[in-house]
């Protein structure tokens, strides 16, 4: 069933038990992103220290894809260098626009490769990208400081 290529087990797990979903009170940048077409909203905090992503925490409402994807992104970014983190965002974006032709690099994206199937459902790509774009925005705002 096509549905299974969208809703991988990993995704449903992250959806049920999202990681880092509780805003920390200290952060170097906080952003609020919305997906206007469906109403999903997310607030995301990033703490950068010495070129390293020290912490990511978030809060928000949304579908399984957006929630799971943010959970995966947050967990992936923590501990990475800013450069590695931003390049992971680029990899993930490329995967999302692959129209089902790419599998994603597990070295870089870890659990993120579970979202490869989303790229075949154009209406859901925005959902999968929400958390990653929020992270990118927050990270760049932090360095801008």
């Amino acid at each position: 069933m096509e549905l299974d290529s969208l809703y991988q087990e990993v995704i449903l797990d992250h959806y049920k038990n999202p990681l880092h979903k509780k805003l920390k009170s200290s952060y170097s940048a906080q952003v609020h992103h919305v997906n206007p077409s469906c109403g999903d909203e997310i607030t995301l905090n990033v703490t950068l220290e010495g070129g390293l992503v020290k912490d990511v925490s978030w809060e928000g409402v949304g579908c399984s894809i957006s929630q799971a994807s943010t959970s995966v992104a947050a967990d992936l970014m923590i501990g990475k260098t800013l450069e590695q983190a931003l390049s992971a965002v680029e990899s993930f974006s490329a995967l999302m626009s692959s129209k089902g032709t790419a599998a994603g690099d597990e070295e870089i994206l870890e659990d993120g490769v579970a979202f490869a199937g989303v790229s075949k459902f154009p209406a859901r790509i925005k959902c999968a990208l929400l958390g990653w774009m929020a992270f990118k925005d927050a990270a760049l705002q932090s360095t801008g400081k």
Partner: protein
Amino acid sequence: MMRSNFSPAEIREDFAIFAKTMRGGNRLVYLDSGATSQKPRQVLDAERNFYENSNAAVHRGAHLLAEEANAAYEGAREILAGFLNAEVNEIVFTKSATESINALAYSFGNSAPGSKFALAPGDRIVVSLLEHHANLIPWQQLAKRTGAELRWFGITPEGRIDESNIDELINDRTKIVAITHQSNVLGTIVPLSNIVAKAHKVGAVVVLDACQSAPHFAIDVKKLDIDFLAFSGHKALGPTGIGILWGRENLLNAMEPFLTGGSMIETVTMTDAKWAAAPKRFEAGVPNMAQAVGLAAAIKYLENLGMDKVAEHEAQLTAYALDKFSNLRGVEVVGPKESKDRGSVISFTMAGIHPHDVGQVLDQYGVAVRTGHHCAWPLMKELGLVGTTRASFYIYNDEADVDVLIESIERAQKYFKV
């Protein structure tokens, strides 16, 4: 010729799209007519016939094609006037209800200070919490531009208009009351007589958003005693790119125009222009002729079925569906739960599954519904929801469609293990 009994199966034969195979090899169960309806071949044929036999710019040529185009276009206006029990010169063709409502808001905004339509600081525009963005943001922005105040009717727990403070809301400074006829989210039908009476008593005009009503039950603008009305053709079996703005003739002719350009003028100099009478005043440029002709064919199709039959069919289907919904565990209908004074739009939420995920599973079974905030974000916030899943019915739907919907909802619950 009236069809003697109402047969969705027979109706579906006029709609080629129902022959399409959907995801998972399923048939199309189209429950998204609240967003846009499907189109029967009669409508597509009428458009094509216009292009292939009478295509020319109306109002602009003395040649035979222009004459024929004009007859087709003005003939469409007559059919729309009949549909609403309006006068022919009161029917303005726009591109959509969104344009119709914006046209009014801008026309009011263009009025000379002191005119009947001009708004000043302290004046008031009244809407409701049920509004679609299209009948909210134009007024909100008009209020900002003019310094007028925007106020709104609240809702009862059941999702009906709360009229308890109507006397406070609609006061002597109220110039415009803009309200939906039927909520596109909850299905609530708004009772108009009190609101219209109160508005007229204080000298305000009533603008009705009939997007979710005109396609579904008979409307008589004279009986409703309203002043302006808007709806979109694409939700009423018609083509995309055509909407209706109806207004009382004396009001339209006293208003400033909205779009300016060709065919809406009396005279023009470099620095000044005088306006033609309605409806031309509000139809600048070469109009969406084929779409007007297509919409007229859609209206004829509906009238051939009989608007009362259409309403009755939808009411039965809605009652059937509401009954089925009441037996589903973990599923909550948002809005009126019995079929009195409600249309055929059913919004619901599911415990533990986000609407977007519900929609996705339903799609796998060929069921097309809409999910999200339905362009009624303030209503969603009021209800404390991020969104709903919405099924909306029309003439081509039947009980079998409802059954597939209900089964698919249960499958979604199984899929998401809730």
